[in-house]
């Protein structure tokens, strides 16, 4: 088991607001983290900070035994892959070309994608269930298709740590299940870990081993999913009471409406 990312005493602010204070987080291989919290609690900003795309107000993040912000952008992208919340269609590129950009951090300035890179991209397209779209221009895809192409790109990056911002946006339930299985298989292992922003507690429970919850006032709860889930059941940390029916792998989370 290796430590892929470690944050210490992390403080993130947006304007006057404290998004999180004194956050200590250690992401190790074999773990999968769910990042939970209400709208505007700072999940995306925290994800960007952990990815090295946003500077924290205070505290340190270590990746590959080096301070994250001193890591060259290319080296950082070899260690951390990110699925951003919003997809941009760019202009003119095909689905295959887009997924191939996932190989960008692995290629030298002058090199073209090799046969291996194309094979990796094609495999990732198949994993995400969009192999039939390879030659289509990005601009012709539906929201769900675009989302899966983006996920394929993250997979093609083959980084030990993958961070997903709401990966299930726009996906129908069949694709949610398929992508969930794919992420568990390909992003979690002896050398891999992932963290995903999710709102669905059932997905968070069944897909993740650990939960990280931001309360929106700078406070946070992190740890094995059972521990954090107990807190969520006791206190309305997500702004609404939550019930759990059943235990363990049969558990179902329910949001009582009255």
């Amino acid at each position, binding site marked *: 088991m290796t430590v892929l990312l470690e944050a210490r005493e992390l403080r993130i602010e947006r304007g006057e607001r404290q998004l999180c204070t004194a956050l200590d987080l250690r992401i190790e291989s074999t773990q999968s983290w769910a990042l939970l919290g209400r709208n505007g609690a700072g999940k995306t900003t925290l994800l*960007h900070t952990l990815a090295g795309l946003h500077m924290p107000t205070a505290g340190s993040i270590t990746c590959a035994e080096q301070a994250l912000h001193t890591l060259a*952008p290319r080296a950082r992208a070899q260690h951390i*892959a990110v699925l951003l919340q919003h997809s*941009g269609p760019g*202009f003119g590129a095909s689905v295959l070309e*887009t997924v191939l950009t*996932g190989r960008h*951090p692995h290629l030298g300035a002058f090199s073209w994608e090799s046969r291996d890179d194309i094979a990796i991209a094609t495999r990732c397209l198949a994993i995400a269930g969009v192999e039939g779209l390879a030659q289509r221009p990005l601009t012709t895809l539906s929201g769900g298709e675009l989302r899966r192409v983006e996920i394929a790109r993250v997979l093609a*990056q083959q980084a030990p740590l993958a961070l997903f911002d709401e990966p299930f946006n726009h996906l129908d339930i069949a694709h949610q299940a398929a992508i969930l299985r794919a992420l568990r298989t390909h992003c979690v292992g002896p050398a891999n870990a992932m963290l995903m922003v999710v709102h669905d507690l059932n997905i968070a429970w069944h897909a993740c081993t650990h939960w990280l919850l931001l309360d929106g006032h700078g406070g946070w709860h992190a740890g094995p999913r059972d521990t954090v889930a107990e807190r969520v059941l006791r206190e309305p940390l997500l702004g609404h009471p939550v019930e759990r029916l059943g235990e363990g792998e049969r558990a179902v989370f329910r949001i009582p409406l009255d």
Partner: protein
Amino acid sequence: MTPGHRRLLALALVLAVASLAIALLVGSTDIPSAEVLRHLLGDDGSVQDRIVDQLRLPRALTAFAVGGLLAVAGVMMQVLLRNPLADPYVLGVSGGAASAVLGAMLLALPVAWYTAAATVGALFSTLLVFGLTHAGDDWRSERLLLTGIVVAAGWAALISFVLSVSPSDRLPGMLFWLMGDLGQASTPSVPLALLIGVLMLAMLRARDLNVATQGMLRAAALGVDTGRLRLELYFAAALLTAAAVAIAGAIGFVGLIVPHLLRRLGGSDHRVLLPGAALVGGSLLVLADTAARTLIRPMQLPVGVLTAMIGVPVFLYLLHTRTAR
């Protein structure tokens, strides 16, 4: 490189050679093609020899270089602003450069100062448009176009002002230059060297540019040093535009039509798009200039009039299809 990419670049190369050949063969004086080749290779001191060696060849090469500069500048601005409608002329960058050069003309500064004046004008104009458009981490397309168009209108007003206070003996020269004119072109080596140099540097960044078309945040996530890339693109695009304007005046729409055409033909990968834009942009301006000096010969039209006649419908079509989507 896919076979399609190779075909596209080969086609662009053929077009470039053909356009230069046409420019050498056609003109207000009829010179047989065998003679042209002989004059090109040897020197017999005749008038025809001077027409080919000292008028047609340098003019064609300058047109090629300027067209290439404008097309490559267009590609860079489109990535920087993430908008295929970006073009040095549309965004007022050419206008800024032209105003500065006209100011230099009004003050009767030596010709050598024109390039410096154009560079300052182009950089200032780019800064103005970017500064007013920048919102958060991304550039807003509509705001960008509006800002660019308004800034361009401002430069146009300034240009009118300079023209109205200029002594009447300088007016014809100023006007012709303003509309884009290659008649004075004589030293193609400088713009050609600039084009080749910048192109080679840009090729090092070509894959970064591919990633950057999908947004700077995504490019950063894929390991691109986006702060540096932005700065490089900004300076390179402004410099190329400035050089083109200083040499040939404000020639519009080359930077818009050429990249669009190449993307349509499957060349959206910048490793193909950059050299392709240089070749096709060069060819387009050589052909436009050849038409400009032969359509109603022996009179010469400003080449900018011709590129605008092609460019305006293409721009409107692009704007329409993008809004419709």
